[in-house]
């Protein structure tokens, strides 16, 4: 049984089909890549999975639970974490607070118990701080734990966003163009980190513009073009698929 299964999803914006009957499956423990030219509908698909937007028709199942019409925070509470294409780090908090806010769904207690600072709240806050520092340490950001998040360089902020998502201990991690804006070295580090996250048992679904990187790390790749799924399979098979080559060449020409 796949961890995530998308069935016949369709999404329209003012009559324009962003996604046309797309069906996809993500196996537990795998890294799945989603590629396609600009405007192919990759980000739309991610928004639908994470509940930011609702599909026109079709169903999405996560752990065999129908999440199609759930609220965004309920979906993330089930264990789907995501990063955003445009960086969404909370610039009004310190680095460590960003990570701790990521743990939100695991910290229990009502408003009242936090206000009264009951003993178990004190304990859980202390543990959260300790764990957040461990996560920062593994990301190499521990030295900056007390700086304001918005003051970090771009690459570090991307890393922080990833760390925040990891802090919620997701089962499925949706990465929306994690390599955009990174330098080559940063990109290589990111690939290693993604492989390492998979080692820890997290399933990863990744949208990426940077073909080389996805081809390298993904077990399986799906290709979207004009809202339709045109190919799916191992990186090698996809690379040789004539439809994919054509779509990308057209895309390249249009860009130029």
């Amino acid at each position, binding site marked *: 049984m796949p961890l995530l299964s998308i069935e016949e999803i369709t999404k329209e914006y003012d009559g324009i089909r962003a996604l046309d009957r797309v069906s996809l499956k993500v196996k537990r423990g795998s890294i799945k890549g989603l590629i396609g030219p600009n405007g192919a509908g990759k980000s739309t698909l991610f928004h639908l999975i994470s509940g930011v937007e609702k599909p026109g028709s079709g169903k999405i199942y996560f752990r065999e639970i129908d999440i199609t019409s759930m609220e965004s925070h309920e979906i993330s509470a089930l264990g789907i974490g995501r990063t955003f294409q445009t960086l969404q780090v909370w610039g009004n908090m310190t680095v460590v607070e960003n990570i701790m806010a990521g743990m939100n769904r695991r910290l229990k207690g009502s*408003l009242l118990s936090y206000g009264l600072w009951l003993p178990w709240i004190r304990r859980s806050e202390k543990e959260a701080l300790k764990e957040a520092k461990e996560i920062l340490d593994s990301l190499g950001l521990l030295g900056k734990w007390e700086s304001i998040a918005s003051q970090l360089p771009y690459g570090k902020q991307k890393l922080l966003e990833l760390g925040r998502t990891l802090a919620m201990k997701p089962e499925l991690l949706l990465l929306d163009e994690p390599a955009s804006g990174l330098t080559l070295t940063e990109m290589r580090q990111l690939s290693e980190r993604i492989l390492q996250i998979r080692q820890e048992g997290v399933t990863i679904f990744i949208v990426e513009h940077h073909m080389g990187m996805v081809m390298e790390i993904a077990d399986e790749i799906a290709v979207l073009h004009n809202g339709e799924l045109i190919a799916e399979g191992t990186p090698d098979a996809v690379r040789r698929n004539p439809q994919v080559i054509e779509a990308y060449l057209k895309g390249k020409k249009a860009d130029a």
Partner: protein
Amino acid sequence: MVDKTKKEFRKRDIFYLVPLWLLSLIAPDPYLYHKKEFKKKDLFYLGAICLAPLIWSDTHFHHLMVLAGIYAILALGLSLFMGYAGQISLGHAAFFGIGAYTTAILTTRYAFSTFPAFLASAVSAAVIAYFIGRPILKLKGYFLALATLGFGEIFLVIIRESTDLTGGVIGIFGIPWFSVMGFSFDTYLKQYYLTWGVLIGLFIFSKNLVRSKVGRALLAVAASEDAASSVGINVPRIKLEVFVLGAAFAGLAGSLFSCVMSTANPEAFSLGLTVLIVMMVILGGMGNLYGPIAGAILLTWLTDILSRYQEYSLPIYGVILILLLIFFPDGIGTRLNVRVIYLIGYWAKKKKRDEGKL
């Protein structure tokens, strides 16, 4: 020659930075959010609050500080909603009014003693805030501001029109002094300790919220709701919770207010009060909890001092507010604007520069 002037420049710059540095010692810095734990500084503030009315022992001062404390409770609740969650409410005076009227009605008509009425005020304000907040908080930005504004106005109309219950425009008189277990707070000094005691309790409560999961969730909602819900924060719920909490604070403040004034009438809870509280929060500084208290003390005093100048008071008030916002754009609870400091330096140097000395 060139080197010498450069040296002079530097010395002067350091000189201008001295007041900034002094201020930063006493004022909490909003940009260092990790400094949220209780500090020794807080003990100093606590001592100052306890000793102040004994040092300045005239009743006018006590009365003013009672008012400032009540406004500070209001501003504290609003600052959680505005400064932390990043939402706008222009109907906060209505919850203050609900608290005041609850106490007024319960004590004068139903012979409640003041303490249960005090608690009931918080509950009634919170319950109304819950039912108002559920639909209203789906709105954002200006729309939320307008909806809350509308709520405030509707509240005033209801109070004015339901004369049987609230006494209409005349209001309710003869609300007893606040008393607990037979101890009556019948002097301004006693009321000072009462209001500031309540304020300190609520301040500690708020600070505990702000330095924990709740505060982080609020700041996350303020910065990006999409990102907040992507880590499982229930955005509508946390907004509602903090809105209701702010209303409960306002209800408590309103209850104290009606006991201190011994009257409740609709004029006290008009839009003017809302604007005053919002000014306290903004002038005091958003996103820190000392700010609203500082803002409340400052504006209460300012209005009192300016009332001596009668018809000139409002223009002077306006000018002072503008100046404060220029010099302390992040609020008086924070630092002086660095750019303004340099501007002063620029003016100071301008004369010399014109004379050709630089």
